[in-house]
């Protein structure tokens, strides 16, 4: 008995000191620790200047972070939660990630159920009045509707009704169109400026000019194409297609997320769509089931082109990121 009591006492004591040390940990030291830990996971665009202790703006994924860091350059450090290279649809945060999010001066997230693993903590923070900006609340949201359905009439129409619910909901892939990014930029900058207590008008003007030029450049690139029909890894290029006169006709995983699984029926349907439209390329990306895509390519004779759509993929800036995949698409379809 005495042994047990001693053990219980020891545990209580240990827990007590742990609690004390946690509460005595002031934000200054945690920030420094977080900064050091996040240096490896930060977006490539983050200019690490740890000498001056700038406030942390947390952005969930790297592509969005590349835009935010242009806005707040010199005023705040941008910390990216989802490591560049991991599928944001699938990411599960660590305890450290949640601490980083909760301690941030401002958090920028995609929303629209994109960051599946971060959804609950972000919403809780938002509900508690935390400084969370969901980009999805400041754009014209694209519905995943029957229009995305790989409409080839005949006898499969009933089947399409059956799985219409898969296509319901909204499309989270808003960062793939510079046009959409332009749309949310004023609101984001205004909230960032308030949170950081600074003026970001000059930065907003610069970024707006840059994105407008990029938008025109991509539009010119796609104006040259006779026909732009896209078959992708999952339903990811909707905003891009809408902006530049393309049409999404099918996907290996006909869903807005990579966490879904393709069914035999959907794969057969995809093959039919590819044959009907005479598609020659399937644009795969991170999270596309490689073996399944390879099998589709083998049976239909299409070429597989891997795009970097969910991660920076070595691009140094947002403009370079968009230019890279857009050029790959345009070249493959030319």
């Amino acid at each position, binding site marked *: 008995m005495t042994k047990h009591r001693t053990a219980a006492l020891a545990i209580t004591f240990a827990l007590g000191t742990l609690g004390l040390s946690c509460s005595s940990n002031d934000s200054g030291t945690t920030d420094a620790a977080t900064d050091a830990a996040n240096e490896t996971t930060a977006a490539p665009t983050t200019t690490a200047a740890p000498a001056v202790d700038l406030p942390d703006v947390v952005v969930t994924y790297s592509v969005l972070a590349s835009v935010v860091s242009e806005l707040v350059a010199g005023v705040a450090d941008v910390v990216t939660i989802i490591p560049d290279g991991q599928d944001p649809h699938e990411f599960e945060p660590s305890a450290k990630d949640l601490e980083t999010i909760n301690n941030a001066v401002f958090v920028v997230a995609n929303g629209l159920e994109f960051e599946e693993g971060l959804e609950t903590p972000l919403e809780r923070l938002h509900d508690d009045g935390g400084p969370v900006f969901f980009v999805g609340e400041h754009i014209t949201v694209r519905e995943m509707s029957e229009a995305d359905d790989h409409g080839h009439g005949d006898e499969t129409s009933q089947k399409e009704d059956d799985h219409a619910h898969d296509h319901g909901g909204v499309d989270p892939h808003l960062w793939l169109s510079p046009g959409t990014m332009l749309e949310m930029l004023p609101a984001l900058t205004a909230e960032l400026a308030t949170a950081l207590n600074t003026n970001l008008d000059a930065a907003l003007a610069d970024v707006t000019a840059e994105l407008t030029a990029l938008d025109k450049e991509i539009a010119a690139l796609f104006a040259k194409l006779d026909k732009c029909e896209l078959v992708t890894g999952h339903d990811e290029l909707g905003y891009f297609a809408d902006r530049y006169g393309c049409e999404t006709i099918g996907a290996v995983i006909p869903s807005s997320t990579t966490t879904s699984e393709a069914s035999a*029926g959907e*794969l057969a349907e995809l093959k039919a769509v590819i044959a009907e439209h005479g598609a020659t390329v399937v644009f795969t990306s991170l999270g596309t089931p490689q073996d399944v895509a390879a099998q589709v390519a083998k049976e239909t004779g299409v070429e597989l082109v891997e795009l970097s759509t969910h991660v920076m993929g070595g691009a140094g800036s947002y403009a370079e990121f968009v230019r890279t995949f857009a050029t790959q698409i345009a070249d493959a379809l030319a």
Partner: protein
Amino acid sequence: MSWLVDPFSTNEFLRQALLASVLVALLCAITGTYVVLRGLSFVGDALAHGVVPGIAAALLIGVSGIFGAAVSAAVMMTGISLITRKSRLSSDTAIGLLFVGMLALGVIITSRSRTFVGDITRILFGELLGVKPSDLWWQFVALVVVGVVAIVAHRPFVLMSIDDGLARTSGFSVPIFHSLMLVLVGITVIASFQSVGTLLVLGMLIAPAASGALIARRVSTMMLVAAAYGVLASYTGLLASYHFNFAAGGSIVFVAVVLFAITALVRSVVVRRAADEIPHQHEHRH
């Protein structure tokens, strides 16, 4: 009747998926019958999920997932027998410990790697619709190996599935043949997960064999019944995946379990009727 055949004749991916799941069904019919008779379902489950960290680590460092799975399975089996022998803990505690430990390690590996290509859901559920010919070869080789071992060790395996003492008095070393049985389970899991995922392996290991054990008396007949059930589940599941857009692996396992439920139900009705008839006849004679 074209809806029964056409999906397969027009789609190579479905033919390959069917071939892969049939190979898994045959492999599991043999191993699964021993698993069910000897009550090894928990070890089977543990092995099926315990290979996850090995697969994840192998894919990370760029070697074949089969190699990683084999290492994981070996670690698990050694660990289970060590804990059981060196401590007073029961073997299901040992299995449980290694099971969760390995699975947790797998989750950790997949969650913190920056460029993980084969995420954990794909390891668990497989990519049945993207089966590669090399996967089929692995499964075929495994089937031959497991088949040969099952024939050679048929007598001790059958005796052990009745009673360990029976095997011992017949001069067979129970620990050796028990380990051999576990190796068969390991081979089955390793050869199958690549194409069908660890969940499907477990489903195919238990459900058809359980149905076989319900109907048949002889071990070899149980295996035949299990094989037939497994093949039927594979075909029906893939057909459902085609016509109703269900995930392929899940459909097959679900059909296998439903087939078991139907079998159990029919059997209980038949047995009750037979039981009703016996006193009835008895009365008649008087």
